[in-house]
């Protein structure tokens, strides 16, 4: 019993260490996760990857994609700067929208995503 108790404590400590290890590219990962959820049109996932202030906009974004096919092409994201609590992220690649065999490509590199830390996660909060 004592051994199991020690083992469980060790497990918790390991999890704690893992949890507290900083992830250098977390904001960019958050943007990529947001774009992936958007391409899948997973409304719940998109909203959960969005900051509270941007939730209604995020729903509009998903709704706009509902009648078209959507796919991400060669998307990579990186952090390009920080303004106070906001981390700026730029992504390369495209979001391809398909409607009746016609493909419209959105160049993601033209957007700069603002990511904020909210409830322990980097969440998309607007883009320009």
């Amino acid at each position, binding site marked *: *019993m004592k051994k*199991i*108790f020690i083992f*469980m404590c060790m*497990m*918790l400590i390991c*999890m*704690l260490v*893992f*949890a*507290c*290890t*900083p*992830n250098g590219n*977390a*904001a960019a*990962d*958050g943007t*990529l*996760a947001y774009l*992936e*959820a958007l391409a899948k049109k*997973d*409304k*719940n*996932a998109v*909203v*959960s*990857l969005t900051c*509270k202030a941007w*939730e*209604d906009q995020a*729903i509009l974004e998903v709704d706009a994609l509902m009648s078209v096919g959507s796919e991400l092409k060669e998307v990579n994201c990186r952090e390009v700067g920080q303004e106070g609590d906001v981390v700026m992220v730029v992504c390369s690649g495209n979001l391809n929208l398909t409607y009746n065999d016609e493909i419209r490509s959105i160049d993601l590199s033209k957007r700069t995503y603002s990511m904020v830390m909210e*409830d*322990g*996660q*980097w*969440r998309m909060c607007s883009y320009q």
Partner: protein
Amino acid sequence: MTILHIAVFILSAWIIRSLGERPAAMWLIFAISILSLFWLQPVSPIRTLDYWLPAMMIALSILTWLVINPKQESLLANNQITLIILPVIIIGISLLRYAQLSFLSAWINPTKIGWALLFVISIAALVFLMIKGNISQSIMARCLIIIAILIFIAIKYEPLTTKLSYALRKLNHQSTDLASAQEIAWVGYSYFAFRLIHVIRDWQTGRKISINLREFIAYIFYFPAIIAGPIARIENFAYELQNRANQVTQAHTFESSKRIMHGVLCKFILADSLSLMPLNTTTVQQASGSIWMWIIIYAYALRLYLDFSGYTEIAIGISGLLGIKLPENFQRPYLSENLTIFWNRWHITLTQWFRTYYFNPLTRFIRTYRVQLPAAWIIFLTQMSTMLLIGLWHGINLNFIAWGFWNGLGLFLHNRWSEWSKQHFKSDNKNEWVAGSVKCISIFLTFNFIALGWVWFAMPTLNDSIIAFAKLFGF
């Protein structure tokens, strides 16, 4: 459940199976079942809800297990490893919040460690009070049933679910304008509640079952059957769990693999293809005539069966790989000759559950009531109310009530017809051709009655259902 879930579950089943009768196999079933509970819960726009819903299910299960076991201190001592692992998992998952793995937000939004700790301490205090204190087990049992039913109502009655979403959003400082019932999707709750109530009701009626916490948790959250059942009885599951090594043979493995493949074919190829022809307001409006409407209705009826029975086959198959036999849920229901047979072959474990815990006790109560009702009235009341309850289980709205009424009325009319025809027709018809024709016509009529009933089930409002019926019959 997606193909990824199924693949991971099959892999897990193979690993557990390879451990044979080692204790680690049992621990793995337990741990994978708990983790699956968190994994299968879809992410909610309401922050941390996807963490709290599974955590609450675990807490309710622990309390239920305490209720059905004799109150003694050795209970905790004999289950201390499980009682340590459960909080470690609950706290461990909350720690994921601090790992800054952004992709996780698309899967789960864990709460702050402080809240997780407070939750674990509260449950531990309640457990301690139940063991050492004077909390009556029978009162606790009643409370748990009431809680299970109240939660059920809260998540199945849309106006209430929307209000709940509003309240939770307010609590989280999220926009209340976006509150909607769809945000509170509690995966597996129905089956969880059925298992919980089954265990408590059996305990209340004097059926004692000796089961440790690890096996109890494995029963409640058994990973192949979390989402769509079937609802096994606890004593059968415990027996299967103990004797699973005997079932892990080459023949069983072949049979189980066949069931999985058949299930995948039914669910992901046939049912998903038929979903291109849905039964909804738009298709009803677009259907150009009654023939198209009939095609849509038949496609929906087939899809519903293939989808649900496909899931069940996958669950039975994965469980079979582990050597655990789950009960069958479907036995060619659309080939039933009458409605009574249909409801004995469609979602069998659910109808058995309602028969055991509602229909039979109600029939007994009415029969022994001081005011004697005619037999026909008793049949009407019991069958109708059972079908209405099954309807309400799918969702608390007028359409599901109408669907329950449709089937309840059908069952009653069939019962009366059977009684009447027994007295007026001789059933010793030796002519095979006539008997075969009667059988075919019966199957055809039963299938069509059930298929028409799905109109109430699939359409969002009574008005839409009536429009669909009007189109079906050329009005």
